[in-house]
């Protein structure tokens, strides 16, 4: 009962606090929304692009060209030997007939049909796992070169290197943007709390005078911080949804021009509600700490 009573009082005081400086509160909500929108758009785009990225050959590929006289049994043995190696995700056998057919289709050359035999070798395409570091790819290439029945080995380690660098850059950028947004949100809540504390100095003094404990004093400010970030998150979600909806058609058209399909969409509503709840807790905690810090001078 007592716990309910003090929380009900804190809610009423929070409302009074926000009514006292509605402009500051709204500004804090809009600033929080602005800080939230950038990572939210990033997360939405990343989630929308996930199916496309999954189709990309992210793991490094090594092509083993076998000597022409290699029998089917030998190729199968080699294929299972490779598949058993550590770090190998997949081994695909492209038969020489399939390779010739594909080449004919790709080049549209009728001259290939005039060849007496098939000059192409059987190929084993070894896909390593995505996490394989470039140095290990090169070691593996050297080892595979020494295998029996292998005539030559080709590996596009440059692509893998570029992809890893790109992923690293994307991770660093996402971390920086996320970190910057987090710092901004903390600063917004702290600045908002300081303003509210300043405008409530008389109230806080009166509370201290009548023996209110720190938690009782802090609670309305913490609730205001929670509300600021929760509303900021919801506003950011609304802005993100509107922006992505407006850009979805153009993004899909662009993807289609490259022969891909891309459906740009906002994060699911239940995720956003969960995010708003988490933001409310974080906002409340930051505001509580900020208020305690501001009250330290009054014992």
């Amino acid at each position, binding site marked *: 009962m*007592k716990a309910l009573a003090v929380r009900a009082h804190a809610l009423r005081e929070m409302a009074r606090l926000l009514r006292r400086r509605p402009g500051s509160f709204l500004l804090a909500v809009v600033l929080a929304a602005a800080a939230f929108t950038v990572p939210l758009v990033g997360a939405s785009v990343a989630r929308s692009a996930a199916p496309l990225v999954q189709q990309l050959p992210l793991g490094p590929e090594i092509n083993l060209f076998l000597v022409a006289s290699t029998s089917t049994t030998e190729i199968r043995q080699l294929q299972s030997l490779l598949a058993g190696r550590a770090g190998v995700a997949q081994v695909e056998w492209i038969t020489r007939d399939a390779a010739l057919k594909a080449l004919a289709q790709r080049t549209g050359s009728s001259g290939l049909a005039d060849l007496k035999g098939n000059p192409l070798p059987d190929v084993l395409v070894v896909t390593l796992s995505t996490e394989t570091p470039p140095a290990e790819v090169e070691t593996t290439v050297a080892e595979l070169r020494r295998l029996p029945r292998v005539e030559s080995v080709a590996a596009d380690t440059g692509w893998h290197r570029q992809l890893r660098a790109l992923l690293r850059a994307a991770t660093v950028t996402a971390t920086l943007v996320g970190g910057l947004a987090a710092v901004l949100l903390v600063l917004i809540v702290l600045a908002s709390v300081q303003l509210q504390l300043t405008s409530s100095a008389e109230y806080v003094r009166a509370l201290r005078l*009548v023996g209110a404990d720190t938690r009782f004093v802090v609670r309305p400010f913490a609730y205001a911080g929670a509300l600021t970030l929760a509303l900021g998150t919801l506003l950011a979600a609304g802005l993100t949804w509107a922006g992505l909806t407006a850009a979805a058609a153009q993004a899909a058209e662009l993807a289609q021009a490259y022969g891909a399909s891309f459906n740009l969409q906002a994060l699911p509503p239940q995720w956003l509600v969960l995010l708003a709840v988490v933001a409310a807790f974080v906002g409340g905690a930051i505001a509580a700490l900020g208020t305690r810090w501001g009250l330290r001078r009054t014992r």
Partner: protein
Amino acid sequence: MTEAHAATTPLIEFDRVRKSFGGAQPVLNEASFTVERGQFAVLTGANGAGKSTALKLITGWLAPDDGRVAVAGEEPARLRDAALSALRRAIGMVPQDLHLLADRSVLDNVMLPALADGLSRKAAAERARSALQRVGLADDGAEMPAQLSAGAQQRAALARAIVNRPAVLLVDEPTAFLDAAAATVLLQLLEEFARAGMAVLMASHGEPAPLPSMARRLRLAEGRISE
């Protein structure tokens, strides 16, 4: 604060208290006095003599440099936040500048200590109305503090101080800006609270007349308290 404890311990106790600010001449020097349950003590002294300092030592806003200040056996200076707040809720305090909140009604002001004590709004309002009635402001709950006279504002602050039914009541310069009639009403109220069992300590730069017959006079001069 148990009844047995309260019966044997003075509610306010200063034992050879010393307090100075920034190495200057001590405001309080070996100051000792006690106020028992049901006593009305008036601490007089010139401006800057240390009366408000004495009250702040009792409420724990200040800590003594030396000696002991205790309220019902508890030393405010040694208490941490929650315990100190609980002790302050057991002390009714009317500061010189009253600290009535201008943006809420008299009733809301008087309710504040009860709300801080965890009472529901309804229960706090009931207590506040009862406190306002005791100080003769039963009909003024809906007013804003600025709408009251200086004497009525003092009584509103007094109602706020007694709303949690404290054992100790501290009043700082309550008659400083009141005319004789309003001062008399206020002093009668303080006497009434003392007779009801509270330990009342009033700080005043001069001796307000007419002081109730039961009042004990404590004089603060050059840091020492004499009776």
